[in-house]
């Protein structure tokens, strides 16, 4: 194809997206569109998979059977979400093996929030309430994104996600109404998860590199700063309601903006964690790669069994 033909195709492609048409796997697409989607969708899938680890830590120690079944179901949902997203990514012509390889070698990123430790039961509450809350704010606009398989996966994810946030908030509410020690535990979890949750919505608009192109392709519909403000405005009253305090002395209602003003985010910490120096980066990768390697013989045995069974069937058919 000549450069001019490609330019022409690209123009038609952008017009289709502008008209709100969906792009499907076999449609022509610019190489940059394919690459950007593989990167974002696989990062999203990796985040779901690694996101199981901090919570998996508490399944066996949940304080009641009710809490245990809920947490187990939530973690299972995250596995499911990872799988929806991996298979949607594969429609762009990348194999599952390549995607795993990128995660395990550290080439691909996942959400840096999962590199923080879960040291008390209240962390399960804080994660559901804040981390899933922030994730929902990020994900809802993606139900309308331009790439069909991604949009369809996100619709399913969003439908399932709201139970995650509710179960987290309920945990926090119960602890906040409990003994002074329990309330303190809830407050401590909020103190530790608040700032990382704000960072989770991404760097500020002035330094975010992908925003403009992503907006065009509907990979993003609101800027990071707008999403963050939305998250803060929605979460602060929820904290007030259960008597917990947001750990930000500069947080103040701004009557004029009809929004909360908030304090400075420690972006150095964010970049440290992104670069691999968070409290649990190594531990998470070790757990993930270990699980993959220890499962190898099971995958091989299943494949060998399937092949043997098929051969036997073919023999009988003759």
């Amino acid at each position, binding site marked *: 194809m000549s450069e001019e033909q490609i330019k022409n195709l690209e123009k038609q492609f952008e017009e289709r997206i502008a008209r709100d048409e969906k792009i499907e796997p076999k449609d022509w697409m610019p190489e940059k569109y394919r690459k950007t989607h593989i990167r974002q969708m696989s990062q999203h899938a990796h985040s779901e998979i690694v996101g199981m680890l901090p919570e998996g830590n508490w399944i066996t120690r949940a304080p009641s059977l009710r809490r245990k079944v809920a947490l187990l179901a939530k973690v299972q949902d995250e596995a499911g979400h990872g799988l929806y997203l991996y298979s949607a990514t594969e429609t762009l012509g990348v194999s*599952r093996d390549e995607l795993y390889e990128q995660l395990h070698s550290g080439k691909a990123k996942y959400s840096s929030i999962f590199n923080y430790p879960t040291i008390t039961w209240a962390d399960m509450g804080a994660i559901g309430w804040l981390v899933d809350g922030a994730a929902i704010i990020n994900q809802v606009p993606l139900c309308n994104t331009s790439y069909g398989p991604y949009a369809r996966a996100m619709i399913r994810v969003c439908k399932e996600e709201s139970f995650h946030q509710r179960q987290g908030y309920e945990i926090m509410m119960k602890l906040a109404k409990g003994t002074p020690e329990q309330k303190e535990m809830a407050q401590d979890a909020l103190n530790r998860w608040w700032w990382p949750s704000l960072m989770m919505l991404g760097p500020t608009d002035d330094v975010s590199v992908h925003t403009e192109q992503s907006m065009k392709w509907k990979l993003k519909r609101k800027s990071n700063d707008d999403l963050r403000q939305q998250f803060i405005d929605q979460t602060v009253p929820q904290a007030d309601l259960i008597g917990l305090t947001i750990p930000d002395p500069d947080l103040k209602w701004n009557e004029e903006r009809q929004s909360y003003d908030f304090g400075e985010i420690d972006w150095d910490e964010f970049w440290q964690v992104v670069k691999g120096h968070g409290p649990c980066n190594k531990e998470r990768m070790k757990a993930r790669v270990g699980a993959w390697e220890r499962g190898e013989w099971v995958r091989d045995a*299943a494949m060998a069994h399937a092949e043997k069974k098929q051969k036997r069937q073919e023999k009988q058919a003759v």
Partner: protein
Amino acid sequence: MSNKKNWPLWEIFVRSKNGLEHRHFGSLHAADADMALENARDVYTRRNEGVSIWVVESKHITASNPENNGELFEPAQDKVYRHPTFYDLPDEVKHM
């Protein structure tokens, strides 16, 4: 990456309730059809989304190429006589 065989990809179709057709839900990897069915149950129907599942190995699906959409689908566009509104009837005929 080794050259040994990985679990193949399967396309998953789910009937959400009797009376409705099976609809494409997504795909997953499994060693064989039985495992694909079991995995599909866990991945795509955790909340009673289905009463029946079909699994088809992805390599068995032949798909049309969007680049040929013109010759495939355009011939139907100028055949307005296939639609009831093409035909003139007197106003007195209320239902037909």
